[in-house]
């Protein structure tokens, strides 16, 4: 789950001697051109994405008319998922920690925001900040013992954390005599779906920008080095334990932000935010989208965010012959299935669909040449 090998071009049949070859300068120029080309392409893609994001509310107004606000609200949800997916991917896809604990941070930070903003009447922004700080602290507390665990043990312990946190939040709800925690003291502006949309996507854009640079910096390289080869990383002076802990804290902070935004979006926090179902949704996002990649996180979040909308078109409960299925249970079933199928058949995720398409076209062209 931690390495990715597929999708890479087949090994070149270069001679093992490393002496400079006559084609060197040409190849070097080609390489530089391809780097510049990739940068240009990425820049253009980012620009297009920004343009679409900025225009989307207007487009929705045109298409959906009265229900535009409702539809836009659903798109905002995808933005929140992108933050959560990125958080899980930093921890699991980059730093290679198979932690299932992020749902706990997601739920706890939502409750912290609800508590501070609704019961203690604190400003919304303070609530968000405290929720992120508490998540970071929890990430540190969970990450420290997790350093001594690896692989399946880490996964089991962190899943336990999610269930415990969910149960505790549920106890809190019961003690306070409520079904779930309503946030009815939110800033008035945020009840406008347009404002919420622009706020969430502004945050998403900033976070993608910052993590893009972070993951290419010394810190991001150290995480990938740990994933690729822990022994060698240590031999070259990467303090492995400290960097794993850092990944836990960064991931928890981002998940905390996503949790608080989700509570804002749904105007309610519920204990089901810290559950095994939520964990599976987080995992499905990064595995289906692509491990160890920002674009994979975004694609995975879009996919997981859209799936319930598509299934929402089906009648609920959905009946297959004599069986009656609740749509909500169907969703987790589908996530689980996709997780399995993606891991077996598609380990590099949606992100590399483009590469697959390219190779397919090339092999078709080659076959054409032979004929």
């Amino acid at each position, binding site marked *: 789950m931690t*390495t990715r090998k597929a999708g890479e071009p087949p090994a070149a049949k270069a001679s*093992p001697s490393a002496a400079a070859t006559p084609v060197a300068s040409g190849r070097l120029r080609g390489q530089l051109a391809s780097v510049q080309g990739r940068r240009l392409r990425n820049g253009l893609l980012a620009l297009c994405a920004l343009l679409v994001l900025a225009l989307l509310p207007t487009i929705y107004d045109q298409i959906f008319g009265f229900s535009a606000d409702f539809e836009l609200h659903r798109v905002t949800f995808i933005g929140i998922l992108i933050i959560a997916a990125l958080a899980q991917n930093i921890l699991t896809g980059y730093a290679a920690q198979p932690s299932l604990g992020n749902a706990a941070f997601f739920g706890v930070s939502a409750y912290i925001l609800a508590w501070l903003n609704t019961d203690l009447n604190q400003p919304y922004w303070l609530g968000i900040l405290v929720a992120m700080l508490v998540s970071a602290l929890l990430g540190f507390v969970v990450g420290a013992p997790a350093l001594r665990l690896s692989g399946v043990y880490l996964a089991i312990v962190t899943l336990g954390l999610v269930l415990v946190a969910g149960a505790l939040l549920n106890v809190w709800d019961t003690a306070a005599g409520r079904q779930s925690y309503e946030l009815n003291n939110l800033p008035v502006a945020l009840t406008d779906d347009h404002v919420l949309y622009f706020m969430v996507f502004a945050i998403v854009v900033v976070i993608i920008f910052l*993590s893009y640079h972070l993951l290419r910096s010394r810190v991001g390289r150290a995480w*990938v080095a740990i994933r690729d*080869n822990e022994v060698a990383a240590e*031999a070259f002076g*990467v303090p492995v334990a400290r960097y794993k802990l850092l990944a836990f804290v960064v991931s928890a902070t981002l998940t905390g932000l996503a949790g608080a935004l989700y509570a804002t979006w749904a105007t309610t926090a519920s204990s089901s935010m810290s559950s095994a179902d939520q964990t599976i949704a987080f995992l499905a996002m990064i595995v289906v989208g692509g491990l160890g990649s920002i674009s994979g996180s975004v694609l995975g979040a879009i996919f997981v965010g859209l799936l319930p909308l598509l299934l929402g078109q089906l009648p609920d409960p959905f009946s297959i012959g004599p069986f009656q299925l609740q749509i909500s249970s169907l969703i987790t079933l589908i996530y689980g299935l996709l997780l399995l199928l993606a891991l077996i058949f598609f380990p590099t995720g949606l992100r590399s669909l483009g590469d697959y398409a390219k190779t397919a076209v090339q092999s078709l062209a080659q076959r054409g040449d032979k004929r």
Partner: protein
Amino acid sequence: MTASILTPLLEIRGLTVRFGGLQAVANLDLSVTEGQIFALVGPNGAGKTTVLNCISGFVRPVGGTITFAGVSLLPLSTDRRVALGIARTFQQLQLFSTMTVLENLLVAQHAQLKAGLLQGMLPFGQARLEDKRARIKAQATLAQLGLEDYAGRVVATLPFGIQKLVGVARALVLRPRLLLLDEPAAGVPHSEVEKLAENLRRWRDEIGTTLLLIEHNMHLIQAVADHVCVLNYGSKLAEGPARMVLTNQAVLEAYLGRDTQIGEE
């Protein structure tokens, strides 16, 4: 420490390592002079790699001292030893295989760079400057080893011979005072060994690094080593200038096989 020519760069005294009941290294003394190419030879299981691991900090000996340039190494962590100028390669390469060749050389410089989490998130400032310098250094090292064409290639896609050189480049980018090489000739075709020997000497002269290498390939050792130490069952069997040790009939017969002749392998 004033007379650096007389005091050895690396001095090992009474080194003893045990793995459970097995004595891997027993009371070993070694001293490597600055600028030397020092070869550690011996049959499999003789404790050669264990000695290397003690120097780079992966194995903790039960007894003895290791002094590098006047500093006692044993209390230091791995990254402190890297900072002192000790770099190594691995027999099983241990490269960062999903990264590009250039990125491998950047990770190697981790301890020499400073930018942390907050600086790393920004596309400008200290982190970028530092990164740019590290990139230039990495590219220069790649050029020195004739690897510049591979800078942007993902390591896992490269042929073994190139990967082997990337392992060396990753160590040399640190401009180490001491380079530990774990079987540089393993898996290298016979025809390339001559060239490898030439390269080892060139790196020593150009980069000014001292080489301590573990090797089975007698051909390579004969071609490059100034000084040879033969280990067996964790203790020293013979040591001295390469020519003397390698022609020592007892060494050849007992530990490299009765019929072994130099040049074979």
